[in-house]
């Protein structure tokens, strides 16, 4: 289905009813088991990039014995090239709040928190208006679930779930040791569901369409649709909602400028796919997973500059607590500069590749573990650009 065509859909942003919070109201009349069954059947996986099955996350959290539970919406969109959550929060914040409320009902949480990145502070006045509307509707529906917005202050790592909790608890955004996982110990060390903005909207979508309709989109491993942020060397940069499971060459046909050399899928912590691999690469959990960031580079671009830019980003945004990430990022950055300048022989790149592999398996959190993705994909596929 999806290898041949690039299907655009309009489920995330579409308006289906004049009655606000209609889907929320009807969902609240169903049992928790029913709601969870639908989400499980639909195969929904998180839309933040990690792709954890949403129904399982909610189920584990609901099953952890505790007097308090929380629902947290991760709106700390900071991955370079990603701007889809901003668009969702701008156009359909009601759907996000509804999704959070449904989660709250299912897991037995009374409080929801949205951690919004500091760079999006300008959105707060409008969000507060919608939040007031939500609270009114919740009161009318007899739902005891309040939502609060907490601001970030310029730290990419706070998009990592445990770092986000640390930040909301008033500390430095340093990721925690896992286990325990958020389903057992999350915000204030209580069982917490933390999901991406888009995931909550998808929940609402499933409640409205039902799992069977939802499953018609995407592939077996990557159900549903996804919002993509497309930027770089493209004549039509912007936000697009597409079915998952398409192949990259179809994507490039649609969005490239005719001279596409590489596509960075998933931002700086994602993979750089070179032209020769477009045909064989699938965008989805079975291929190259992504939070939605798609950056397109044409043949005029230096992949060395691209990698340099990513490594500088990681070096700066790393929380700094664990050795492989803190020092590894510095070494990778300095290393490619030294090779480019001729201060180190090209064979040093092999050493750095091994280092990035070590970082991948020893770093304390996803940031350090993901640096190897762009590092190895760019160095392997564009080696000459690293050296000459």
């Amino acid at each position, binding site marked *: 289905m999806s290898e041949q065509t690039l299907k655009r859909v309009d489920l995330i942003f579409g308006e289906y009813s004049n009655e606000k919070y209609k889907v929320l109201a009807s969902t609240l009349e169903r049992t928790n088991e029913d709601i969870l069954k639908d989400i499980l059947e639909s195969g929904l996986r998180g839309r933040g990039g990690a792709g954890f099955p949403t129904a399982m996350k909610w189920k584990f959290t609901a099953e952890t014995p505790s007097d308090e539970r929380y629902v947290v919406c991760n709106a700390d969109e900071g991955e370079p090239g990603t701007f889809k959550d901003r668009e969702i929060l701008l156009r359909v914040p009601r759907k996000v709040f509804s999704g959070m409320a449904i989660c709250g009902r299912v897991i037995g949480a009374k409080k929801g928190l949205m951690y919004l990145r500091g760079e999006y502070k300008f959105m707060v006045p409008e969000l507060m208006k919608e939040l007031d509307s939500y609270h009114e509707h919740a009161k009318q529906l007899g739902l005891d679930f309040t939502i609060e917005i907490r601001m970030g202050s310029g*730290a990419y*790592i706070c998009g990592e779930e445990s770092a986000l909790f640390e930040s909301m608890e008033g500390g*430095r*955004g*340093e990721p925690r*040791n896992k*286990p325990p996982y958020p389903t057992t110990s999350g915000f204030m060390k209580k069982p917490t569901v933390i999901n991406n903005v888009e995931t909550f909207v998808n929940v609402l979508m499933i409640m409205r369409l039902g799992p069977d309709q939802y499953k018609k989109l995407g592939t077996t491993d990557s159900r549903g649709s996804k919002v993509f942020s497309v930027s770089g060397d493209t004549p039509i940069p912007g936000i697009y909602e597409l079915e998952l499971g398409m192949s990259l060459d179809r994507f490039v046909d649609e969005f490239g400028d005719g001279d596409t050399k590489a596509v960075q899928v998933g931002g700086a912590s994602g993979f750089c796919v070179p032209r020769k691999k477009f045909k064989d690469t699938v965008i989805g959990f079975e291929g190259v997973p992504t939070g939605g960031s798609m950056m397109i580079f044409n043949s005029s671009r230096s992949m060395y500059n691209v990698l340099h830019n990513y490594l500088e980003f990681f*070096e*700066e*945004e*790393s*929380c*700094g*607590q*664990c*050795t*492989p990430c*803190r*020092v*590894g*990022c*510095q*070494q990778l950055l*300095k*290393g490619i500069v*030294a090779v480019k300048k001729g201060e*180190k022989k090209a064979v040093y790149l092999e*050493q750095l590749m*091994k*280092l990035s592999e*070590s970082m*991948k*398996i*020893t*770093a*304390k959190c996803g940031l350090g*573990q993901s640096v190897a993705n762009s590092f190895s994909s760019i160095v392997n596929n564009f080696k000459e650009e690293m050296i000459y």
Partner: protein
Amino acid sequence: MAKNINLTIDGINVTVDEGTTILEAARNLNIHIPTLCYHEDLCVAGNCRVCVVEQEKVKNLPASCATPAAEGMVIHTNSMKVRMARKHIVELLLSEHNADCTKCYKNGNCELQGLASQMLTGDHLFLDLVPDKKYTIDMFNTAIIKDDSRCIRCQRCVRTCEELQSVSALGVAYKGNKMKISTFFEHSLFEVVCTNCGQCVNRCPTGALIERNYIDQVWDAIYDPNKHVVVQTAPAVRVALGEALGMATGKIVTGKMVAALRRLGFDSVLDTDFTADLTIIEEGHELLSRLKRALVDKDPTVALPMATSCSPGWIKFIEHTFPEYLPNLSTCKSPQQMFGALAKTYYTQKRKLDPKNVVSVSIMPCTAKKFEANRPEMRSSGYKDVDYVLTTRELGIMIKQAGLDFEELPEEKFDSFMGSSSGAAVIFGSTGGVMEAALRTAYEVVTGREVPFDGLNIVPVRGTEGEVREASIKIEKVLPEWSFLEGVELKCAVANGLAHAKTVMQNVRDGKANYHFIEVMACPGGCLGGGGQPIPTNKEIRNKRKMAIYEEDMGMPVRKSHENPEIAEIYKDFLEKPLGHKSHELLHTHYTPRKRY
């Protein structure tokens, strides 16, 4: 009933309680997975990543210190993947580290150096990051030096300062490549609330936090033919010095210590325990006089509870955090400072020496005492009472420098005078020791009888790590002049570690406690766990030192401070009477309120 977990480590099956980490499970099998940020006294950090192991069927290498054992886990601690990853981690640490070991105080004693040596790191794999870092060294302090070029960011010092000591003078600042361990606004340690307790120094795996050493200055004084160098030694040193010289933990090495000090060239080898006894006399009488003012005169201004004042880390702590309670501190100087004042007055008079040619040195288990010796008010002799303070570690270094075979030295005795002491003085080295020593004397002064405890061992006031010890001693059948104390239940509290000191003071402030007398030692376990003691430190080591101290006490011919013959002598010949004019001039002091933040 804890659940049992069965796992396999390096092919060996082992069963552990639920909650045991992989690291602990491996230690049960005598498999020592290397660590850096892990420390038994502190909560788990899991940031250095040195302790990673390979878990079958799992992609990433879990940190063994932070991962609980799970049923059916199969772990390899030394697989090829682990070896390569661990080597990379150590190489990364070395690349941002000033690895010029021969210039470092911790050369030979550094955990990073140990790992590098074990792994045979050889030529560095990666680029040297140090030149661009522009690291700074904070060396403006009398007690502790912070060298950022040697920091591996394990955060042990931060956890120590926050969890164990509740001071939080050190924290983690910035992020990414700029992340560092920092004080408030990167101020020097002497400008912030650091108490100089040195617990961070005890736990720093490298040379990033060290004591300021005065070894060269002491050698210079010893070699100077015009100088008469007097040395005093604290009680906690004699049960730990052996550790710095290759001996087993908790060995009593008093005699060898004295012999070593003589051979190093000190002119007179004396004992801080002497002034510990003196402190008991002065402080005991001070407590009784405050109790009289409270119970007889009904004086509302009398400051009770009274708190001990021999721990300089505690003094600086209360000066910063509870300055309104400074009047509650005993005005007695610490035994070190009492000794220093007497060394340049009583001692010089008796020995017919010119005090300006006397250099007074002390060997302490403590780093804060370096700060204490430099306090401006500590010059009551007209000269600096204590010129140089050396930690137990520094003395160990000097003994090695002199080429002495410490274990083979004969047992020698302290010089007289200011060299004799009681068992009550020795126990100053352990938490609860000052309280016990004070009670052994005060109780007898007031009732004419010995304390009603078997062997004079007042076990209820002996402190333990991790808690505040409370005890009350009933005073009955008193002598006529102490009638106001008849039937009084003397309520005492003993706290060790500043976190517990904080709890006690908060309770006092909030009216939740009605103690009469509080003993506070800044360091966990008391001075035996002091910031100047041999490294490494952990509960087991401190317990062994504790047992040695009480053993030494039991073996002393005199067990009570007031029965020390040199004490009677000094009052007769010099001080006249406790709390007398001479005492106030030389042996008592005042304190300085400091900024809270």
